[in-house]
């Protein structure tokens, strides 16, 4: 009886610590992606979209439309890699411009900048890893 109890407690401790270390790994990865993503954003995106993600007039759309970013979560990587033209509706305002592509950004860079923009400027979408970015990028049209 007593042995069983000790066995159970040990098992429980082991289990929670495994779960915790997984969580820690995700949150460490998240932080790493976010910080790197911020640097990539400042270098490649901030001139148009602004340090506060508010864009500029109707020349450049803001990145503050959480609904748009959520609905297009799996297209963001393609938008960033290949750019975008035509009309987009952001916060109910139409924007028509040319966003240049970023062919030199690697899959991991794109994942990192996605993590940054989808968790800044009032957005809170959580993690997006480079494996998912790779899959999304294979489906770009």
């Amino acid at each position, binding site marked *: 009886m007593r042995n069983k109890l000790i066995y159970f407690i040990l098992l429980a401790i082991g289990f929670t610590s495994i779960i915790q270390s997984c969580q820690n790994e995700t949150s460490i990865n998240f932080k790493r992606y976010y910080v790197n993503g911020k640097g990539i954003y400042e270098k490649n995106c901030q*001139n*148009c979209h*602004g340090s506060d993600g508010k864009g*500029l*007039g*109707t*020349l450049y759309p803001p990145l503050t439309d959480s609904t748009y970013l959520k609905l297009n979560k799996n297209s963001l990587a393609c938008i960033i890699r290949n750019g975008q033209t035509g009309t987009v509706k952001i916060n109910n305002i139409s924007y028509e411009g040319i966003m*240049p592509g970023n062919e030199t950004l690697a899959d991991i860079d794109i994942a990192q900048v996605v993590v940054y923009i989808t968790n800044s400027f009032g957005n809170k979408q959580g993690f997006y890893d480079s494996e998912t970015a790779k899959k999304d990028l294979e489906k770009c049209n």
Partner: protein
Amino acid sequence: MRKVLFFALATFIFQSCSDTSDKKLPILGEREPVEKTIDGKQVIDTIYQTVPPFSYLNQDSIAVTDKDFDNKIYVTDFFFTSCNTICPIMHRNMLNVYNKFKDNPKVKFLSHSIDIKYDLPSRLKTYATKLGIEGNQWEFVHGSRDSIFGIAAKSYLVSAFEDSTDPQGLVHQGWFILVDTKKQLRGAYDGTKEDQVKQLMNDMEQLLKEEFGDAK
């Protein structure tokens, strides 16, 4: 001893006050000494570089000339509408300056496009509208190749040129140039740097005071 200290302190305070209000902005560019006779005495005066007459078309396809800037101070720069590097930063900052002096009849803004081929008035109009600019306090102008590149280099001391090795084919510096009512250059600020743009706004207040007194 106390009195001395008091005097020293008083003059110090007095000086530090007068310093800020009387300080004049420097006059930039080339200068030339000339001899003049005032009341029968020979004196040396200095003639400073000024912006020569110009004529361009603005976003409403209306001619804009140096006359439209008479009795005003203005801020000028060089850009083009499809520029996707420093121009968005410059005009985000310029927009802040514009909003601060909006509707002040003594202040104007003049942005020259260096994309002679594509930035025709209609395209400048679309750009201005998207930036949120109405009216003509901020002029976006189109001109001939020689008149635009010439005035950039010679009159505003801003480097701008066509360059086939650049991805966009056009290279220019991001300076904001402050010009006074005599068409003299009074300041040059990096339009991509927020602290320098703040300095520009302060200097504009100061220049307005110098030119028009305290009356707004």
